[in-house]
């Protein structure tokens, strides 16, 4: 199927990050510049090579506390470049590199930088806690009108009933699910840039405070400050690039009812996306060496394990139990940077993508998965889902 797939005409050429922490005392704008400069240098390019800029989300979500991308045009002005392609979106942001890959595959740009900058750690601290989603608006518009008025004030409350239902249907326990944050914390201990690196045990997990049942504190990702930038380049420029990584396949399908409370079963939110992605490659789940799968909540990683076919429906509890399979040295090392649960909520799989690229290049030091050739990356925000396989260049 190879040549005709547009994603094969794009490569991920660079990844870069600012300082990352619970609180980083620089503006979002400065963090964004730090990440962009690092990513462009990582690609082996200079700023003058960059002719496309994109950020997630676009301006429409700028009023959410801690969303700190900056203004795309100010960033372009500061970089003193010319762009032939720009994008700032929410809808359709199934994967960070999806839109940029379309741009370079269709010749609209050669080297696109996309970034995501968060200051949600600082925002939560300044608000005396994590602010309610949408609470900075006086009224709840659109789909939020069925959530915020009745007290479903956070994505935690909105996803929690689906976790309840999933655990009810399959008999999955909190003792099993604990192994996701516990294992990822062990990975974070090997990542100097992770937000939380001290050991976490199943006992710590079970004793932690409940946010919205069955989701406890350690099931939730960590609000953080930091920026991640990714450079996507046209495949024909590969000879100019330091260490590009191939996009083997990717897809982003929204099916069912795209709504936090109307989804028939949010536990199956990634199924159509994963099926569409696997239809674009001859690789199979068993070929995946490392999985960087979205963990805004631990339960989302559970659902991705099943959607991607790493285990069967309802089997993720036993798959993760004990942490062996998903740990370093296991059959499917998962979220090797700590994921968003310990590495920090870098959001929308930007952190996951950066780690996948570094793993495929062999740049991960103590947490390196030996000989990693195929990495899975997934992202989900409610019902907006994306899945990809990245591969080491031949």
């Amino acid at each position, binding site marked *: 199927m190879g040549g005709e797939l547009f994603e094969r005409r794009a490569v991920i050429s660079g990844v870069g990050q600012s300082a990352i922490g619970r609180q980083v005392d620089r503006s979002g704008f400065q963090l964004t510049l730090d990440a962009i400069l690092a990513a462009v240098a990582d690609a082996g390019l200079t700023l003058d090579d960059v002719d496309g800029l994109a950020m997630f989300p676009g301006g429409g979500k700028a009023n959410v506390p801690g969303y700190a991308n900056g203004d795309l045009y100010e960033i372009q002005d500061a970089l003193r470049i010319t762009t032939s392609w720009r994008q700032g979106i929410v809808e359709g942001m199934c994967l960070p590199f999806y839109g940029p890959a379309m741009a370079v595959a269709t010749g609209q740009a050669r080297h696109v930088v996309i970034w995501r900058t968060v200051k949600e750690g600082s925002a939560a601290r300044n608000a005396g806690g994590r602010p309610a989603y949408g609470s900075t608006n006086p009224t709840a518009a659109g789909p939020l009108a*069925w959530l*915020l008025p*009745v*007290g479903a004030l956070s994505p935690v*409350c909105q996803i929690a*009933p689906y976790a309840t239902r999933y655990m009810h249907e399959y008999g999955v326990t909190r003792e099993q699910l604990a192994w996701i944050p516990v294992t990822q914390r062990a990975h974070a201990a090997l990542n100097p840039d992770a937000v939380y690196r001290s050991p976490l045990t199943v006992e710590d997990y079970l004793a932690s405070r409940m946010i*919205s049942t069955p989701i406890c504190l350690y099931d939730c990702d960590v609000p953080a400050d930091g920026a991640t930038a990714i450079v996507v380049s046209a495949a024909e420029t590969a000879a100019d690039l330091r260490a590009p990584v191939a996009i083997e396949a990717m897809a982003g399908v929204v099916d069912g009812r795209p709504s936090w409370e*109307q989804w028939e079963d949010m536990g199956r939110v990634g199924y159509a996306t994963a099926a569409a992605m696997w239809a674009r490659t001859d690789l199979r789940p068993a070929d995946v060496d490392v999985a960087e799968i979205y963990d805004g909540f631990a339960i989302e990683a559970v659902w991705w394990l099943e959607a991607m076919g790493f285990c069967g429906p309802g089997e993720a509890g036993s798959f993760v139990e004990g942490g062996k399979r998903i740990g370093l040295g296991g059959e499917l090392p998962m979220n090797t940077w700590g994921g968003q649960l310990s590495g920090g909520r870098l959001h929308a799989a930007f952190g996951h993508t950066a780690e996948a690229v570094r793993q495929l290049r062999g740049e991960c030091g103590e947490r390196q998965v030996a000989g990693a050739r195929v990495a899975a990356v997934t992202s989900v925000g409610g019902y907006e889902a994306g899945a990809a396989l990245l591969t080491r260049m031949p």
Partner: protein
Amino acid sequence: MTATVGIPPAVTEETAAFWEAAAEGRLLVERCAGCGAESFPPYGMCRACRSRAVEHVEITGRGHVYSFTVNYQRWMPGLEVPYALVLVEWADHPGVRVFGRLRGCPPEDAAVGMTVEVGFEPGPGGYAVPSFVAVADVGDGIGGTGDGGE
């Protein structure tokens, strides 16, 4: 009842009838004049046959809990916790699911499949918002096995 804390809804052409009925304690959903299918939330279009000829119908019967959560986090100042939130469906109203707080029992008694009555309670901004009242008997089993009318 004192009003619960939250963010009031933005009322639109599509949702005005719902919120007006809510003020009277009535749960309105859209019903297709052509095929009879019910849809929620209101879009002015039947989700079964895509007809634009929709009217409203009131749901009065008992529903069952598809799933639930008990929220412990104080997301906003003055928010009293814990409280249970339930996703409610009706065996005789396929296509309708409504989110709301659970009343009439301790939050920790919320359960998949439990039977509830439609209710409303004073919510933010002077709006009456959907909530559900636990029915004393145990769940009727509908919905606990994934066959709740879908």
